[in-house]
């Protein structure tokens, strides 16, 4: 029970998970294609925030050996999640760009962005 009482943990992980849930909710329930793509993008940023938060170390500094920081190796935060998130951001950008271009193409074809008005997309 004690783990639910730490405010900082709740705030950090809670906001990341909340972002993911908001994104999933948007992607699942919204009717406009643009909003669905936006939801996926918000989901992406929630995942990035979560990964960065896992790598954090209490009272840690950035993993950069700038002058004066050369001997602080013990208190540096984990650089591996940050490198992974750098990759994930770029991949997320590519996914969003291609999804938006597909949305443009659909709009050109059906003249609407609402998925309930595009008959062939109904489920």
């Amino acid at each position: 029970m004690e783990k639910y009482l730490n405010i900082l943990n709740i705030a950090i992980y809670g906001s990341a998970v909340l972002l993911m849930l908001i994104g999933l909710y948007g992607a699942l329930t919204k009717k406009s294609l643009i909003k669905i793509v936006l939801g996926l993008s918000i989901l992406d940023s929630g995942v990035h925030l979560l990964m960065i938060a896992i790598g954090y170390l209490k009272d840690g500094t950035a993993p950069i050996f700038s002058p004066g920081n050369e001997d602080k190796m013990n208190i540096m935060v984990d650089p591996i999640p940050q490198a992974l998130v750098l990759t994930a951001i770029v991949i997320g950008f590519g996914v969003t760009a291609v999804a938006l271009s597909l949305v443009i193409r659909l709009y050109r074809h059906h003249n609407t962005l609402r998925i309930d008005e595009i008959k062939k997309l109904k489920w």
Partner: protein
Amino acid sequence: MKKVIVLISLGILGFYLIDIFLGIGFGVQHFTAGVKDLYLSNSKDTLKVSNVVTAIVVNFRGFDTLGEVTVLFLASTALGGILYKKRHHVGERSVLFPASRVVMSGAKLLFPSIVLLGAYVFIHGHLSPGGGFQGGTIIATGFLLMLLTYRNYSVSHNRLVYFESLAGILFVSIGLVGYFSKGSFLENVLPVGNMNELFSGGVIGIIYIAVGFKVAAELTGIIYTVLHEKD
């Protein structure tokens, strides 16, 4: 009805995610300690790179970055393919209003400094926060400003493709040089120099400059394709 089902399932998902991550804890050492220390000490002692994230992205996991750059290239190619249209008139963008005189002068004034900032960020990627992807994005925002301001500002597509291919070939050939002289792909072949100097880290600086050019060209191409999409 659908919204209720979605809300209930998202609530369950959120509860379990929160539960798992609160169990992990925030700010405590919970990865295998050796991996982090190995990356930190290797990048400090053998590679002499001060920004450890750059060292991981470009050197230790350089092959990953090559794949990432390839994904970006595929995304920009797919965008061009999906949005391709036979009739293509430059200068008739109906979505954009003409910009005011203040914006025009301001954009002309800001554009060189934005490009300079981007170049600074990717040249100094191994010394300070930043790197090829970030610098390339900054340069692309400069081009976005110009494209939004001037209705008939056009970027030569051939030149973009030229830059992009050259940067990609440079990246792969540095990797191949490492393979043939040291025995593994993207191995460092240049002297590593001193820490916190511009010429340190061996091939990292060159690779990040190539990545910066490539990302800038790709993003500019994507922006240009989408902006000139009219109907």
